[in-house]
């Protein structure tokens, strides 16, 4: 019994550590990759070697700022909103496996779990948008809601395709069922997942809700200091979660040479590929207009995801005979 509790605490601490470290790694990668893609160097000073401590310095800066709650805001909702945004991705990260046994919590329906807790984060953003008592925030919240409802459907359909192909709702089970054929067979699904995940994270080119040229910072306009930092952390934790998820679903997670010893490294590497891809997309492509955004979701991704679902179903029926 005591051993169980120690194990649970240890796992929780590991997940929390990963939750605090991996987003910073992604953030630093974004700083550097984006800078070099734009012919710059990025942060070079903080910490000495190529500005490795830039995000730590940013965190210290954020924690020193004054915690301002606007007079017109709904104070309780305004204060709770960042917590909801961050908790959802913490819960999601807890069930993503790095190896067949290296997982925070081995839940039977972990794929549905990740998708379900993602919805809580949405509510957090909506609460931030409404509770700020600011018209830009409200508009940003509206756009967030419209965008997330539209892109959740193709995301879930793409995930359903992977689940059908593996015959399992557990991420560990899906990664076990993975074969190299999936690279071709599930390609449309992976594309749909990547685009929908980028939209779900409100990353450019799907950053209409926080479009700074029209909405200041969307739902986060009124936030400063640690609460704003929490939203930023949630965004980068979201990239970690989505990249690892796609790495596990589409690239087979820990499958690779010597996967008994360094399986977790393969998962992280595969996740890193998609994280860099999401960053790359941000640098390379311009922002979509609101109507284009909806058009891409409903006329592009949903039919493609349905097609992928049909292909997967046919494949499963044919191969299971």
């Amino acid at each position: 019994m005591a051993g169980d509790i120690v194990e649970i605490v240890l796992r929780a601490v590991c997940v929390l550590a990963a939750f605090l470290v991996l987003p910073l790694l992604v953030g630093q990668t974004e700083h550097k990759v984006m800078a070099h893609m734009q012919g710059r160097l990025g942060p070079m000073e903080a910490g000495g070697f190529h500005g490795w401590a830039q995000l730590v310095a940013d965190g210290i800066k954020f924690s020193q700022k004054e915690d301002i709650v606007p007079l017109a805001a709904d104070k309780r909702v305004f204060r709770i909103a960042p917590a909801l945004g961050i908790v959802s991705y913490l819960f999601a990260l807890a069930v993503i496996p790095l190896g067949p046994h290296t997982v925070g919590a081995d839940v039977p329906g972990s794929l549905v779990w990740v998708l379900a807790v993602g919805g809580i984060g949405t509510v957090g953003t909506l609460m931030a948008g409404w509770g700020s008592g600011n018209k830009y925030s409200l508009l940003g919240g509206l756009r967030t809601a419209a965008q997330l409802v539209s892109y959740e459907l193709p995301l879930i359909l793409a995930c359903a395709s992977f689940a059908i192909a593996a015959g399992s709702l557990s991420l560990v089970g899906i990664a076990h069922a993975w074969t190299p054929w999936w690279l071709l067979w599930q390609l449309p699904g992976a594309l749909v997942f990547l685009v929908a995940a980028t939209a779900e994270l409100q990353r450019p080119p799907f950053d209409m809700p926080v479009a700074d040229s029209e909405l200041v910072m969307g739902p986060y306009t009124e936030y400063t200091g640690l609460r704003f930092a929490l939203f930023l952390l949630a965004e980068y934790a979201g990239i970690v979660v989505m990249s690892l998820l796609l790495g596990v679903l589409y690239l087979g997670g820990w499958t690779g040479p010597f996967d008994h010893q360094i399986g977790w490294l393969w998962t992280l590497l595969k996740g890193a590929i998609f994280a860099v891809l999401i960053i790359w997309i941000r640098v390379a492509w311009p922002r979509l207009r609101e109507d284009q955004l909806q058009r891409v979701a409903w006329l592009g991704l949903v039919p493609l995801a349905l097609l992928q679902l049909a292909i997967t179903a046919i494949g499963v029926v044919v191969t299971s005979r």
Partner: protein
Amino acid sequence: MTKFLSGLAKGMATTARTMTTHAHTQQYPHVKPELPSRSRGVIALLEENCTSCMLCARECPDWCIYIDSHKETTPPTTEGGRARQHNVLDRFAIDFSLCMYCGICIEVCPFDALFWSPEFEYSTTDIRDLLQEKETLGQWMPTVPAPEPLVPELPQTEAQQLVVDVEPEDDPAAGRTTKRGAGEVPRPGTEEQP
């Protein structure tokens, strides 16, 4: 649709290419910039050349030059000679918090007492420290680069090329002028010499 997709691919390709090439950033405090010799950093004063004629102070568009001087009388060196008067510069100051770096003072100075220097690292934490007196202004003099020749000299190979290009038999006059242009332009200032 193909246009849309090729546009997306082009964006990815361009950013990837930029990432693999060197960044354009200059690491300024660690690596000093190589400024052209004519860049306008700070105004240096060669005090010996200044006659306190006040031309610069009067032409300055925002009145940021302060000059104080007094007259001194030198007694005649020979018997029955006339005593001579000359100006002694007491104060020459430029307020760089007002200066707009137009360079008019340097243009109007008839005695070449003011020069541009590319030095630019003289920011202060107190705006009053930007009022630089003649001692400070004089310290910039060693940083003033040597003047560039008015007509840039052609490199040797290019000059030979010019001479070869022109056929002297066709037009002797053209040949002469070309030879003259090929590196034998009199340096500025040498023409007036007797």
